């Protein structure tokens, strides 16, 4: 894989259900699309200290419908730039799901995931196997359709389309 690392291990930041894109990156910061600027305010309205506490390689775990609301790609951009290695949620809102794959932010949908702040999670993006090393529980995330795997392996939709344009398929 060129775009993403297959295996990720990191400390968990746990969030509840229906975490919306205004909580992930409030619109008051959307006068810019600079990833580093957006990262400074990532998850701010859900947890004001999050941008300062988060460390590279940490994992976000959330309940159902993560990323509901706006189409703003700034939301997964902010999470990725904040250093989050992977988002595991019970379910994702559909635009966020597409956006995360398109920009190369690893995400996994896992309806029965259980984890708390500070737990250590090990995630195999290839097989979808998630191990909560703190509780010693293993979970299986839903598999991505082959076509999405291909986008993810290339590191996002931009590289995928670039390849298509270069091949002159259009």
């Amino acid at each position, binding site marked *: 894989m060129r775009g993403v690392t297959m295996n990720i291990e990191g400390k968990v930041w746990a969030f509840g259900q*229906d975490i*919306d894109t*205004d*909580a992930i990156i*409030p*619109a*008051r910061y*959307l*006068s*810019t*699309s600079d990833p580093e600027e957006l990262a400074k305010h990532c998850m701010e*309205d*859900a947890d*004001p200290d999050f941008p300062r506490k988060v460390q590279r390689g940490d994992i976000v775990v959330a309940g*159902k*419908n993560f990323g*509901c*609301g*706006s*189409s*703003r*790609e*700034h939301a*997964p*951009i902010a999470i990725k730039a904040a250093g989050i290695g992977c988002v595991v949620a019970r*379910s994702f*809102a*559909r*635009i966020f799901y*597409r*956006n995360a794959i*398109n*920009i190369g932010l690893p995400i996994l949908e896992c309806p029965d995931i259980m984890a708390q702040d500070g737990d250590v999670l090990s995630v195999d993006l290839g097989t979808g196997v998630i191990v909560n090393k703190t509780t010693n529980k293993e979970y299986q995330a839903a598999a991505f*359709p082959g*076509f999405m795997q291909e986008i993810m392996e290339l590191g*996002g*939709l*931009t590289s995928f*389309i*670039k390849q*298509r*344009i*270069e091949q002159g398929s*259009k």
Partner: protein
Amino acid sequence: MTITEKILAKKAGKAKVTPGELIFAKIDLALANDITAPVAIKEFAKMGAAKVFDRQRVVLVPDHFTPNKDIASAEQVKMIREFAREQELVNFFEVGRMGIEHCLLPELGLVLPGDLVIGADSHTCTYGALGAFATGVGSTDLAAGMALGEAWFRVPESIKFVFHGQLQPWVTGKDLILYTIGQIGVDGARYCAMEFTGEVIRDLSMDGRFTMANMAIEAGGKNGIFAPDEKTESYVKERAQRDYEFVESDPTASYAQVYEWDVSTLEPQVAFPHLPENARPISEVGDIPIDQVVIGSCTNGRIEDLRLAASVLEGRKVHPHVRTIVIPGTQAIYRQAMAEGLIETFIAAEAAVSTPTCGPCLGGHMGILASGERAVSTTNRNFVGRMGHPKSEVYLANPAVAAASAVLGRIAGPQDLDL
């Protein structure tokens, strides 16, 4: 097949599609705004794309932080203006011609029945009111659409919502959709097409249908859609500058779920903080004092919405403790409201009337809330911090409820004014 499946099949060049299938389909229109276009333009360049697929069919509307609220916003609009000029886009709209995108595009006949539309704005689903398949995407998806004129989709399962009966006075499309979201939840239609039908829908105006389709995303829907009828025809026939097609679901179409409700006794609905699913009938709201009222947005900034608000505000004054901001959705709606005397009514009632902008709906500008403040708003989202401070509160309602609340200084319906 359902109307959604038929449109997707046709645009994918297939005789049939089934839910769950992944397809590549041709798009009729690609849309972005001043928040999402800058990211799309950067990705478009990185893709190595030189020209957009069709300069008539890529539409850029700077409507969110415009008229430019600060230097950073001005820079963002400048970037898309330069792109629009370089690409010779026909449909780039500056302040003065600009309107809120989802009010503007149907008004100009840029979106038509049977179309497949993607927009880098979650409320792109609004165009389903015309019998089009329209869905929100992110900026990178939009960039790919601008470059190739096509996009990938997972064919959604359809959920049918059948509304029976006859609506009470002051009950609108906004109330139907808030009720629907209240019943099924903010992820009740996640990834699904929401198809609205029944005699109540047949009787509903185009403006009411736009409001309903607009909020399909608030139930997690991929799109909201209505079968086009004579109301659709009379709306589009003077606006269309290209062919369009009426598509409807087969009687044998299959649905993941069907909801049937008799809404004859439905009251105006108010969605409490901090999710649109927290809908309650107006009679169960209680005494909640408010600080601000916003009437406008891609949800409720159309002429019928302004008429409804004006009919409540006529001869009355906004409560001394309340700021009321009215935002017509487009310049044409603004002029129509002037011609009908609605703007006079708003100003006489001591409401502020603004040029079209998304501004306060997403906490951008033109009416930001302070800590502890409460607003009644005809917009679409009441998430934490949506209209300003994370400790402010937004209550979603229809324009008549918003207007009555403005007069009384608390959340109230027109009935509380003996209307």
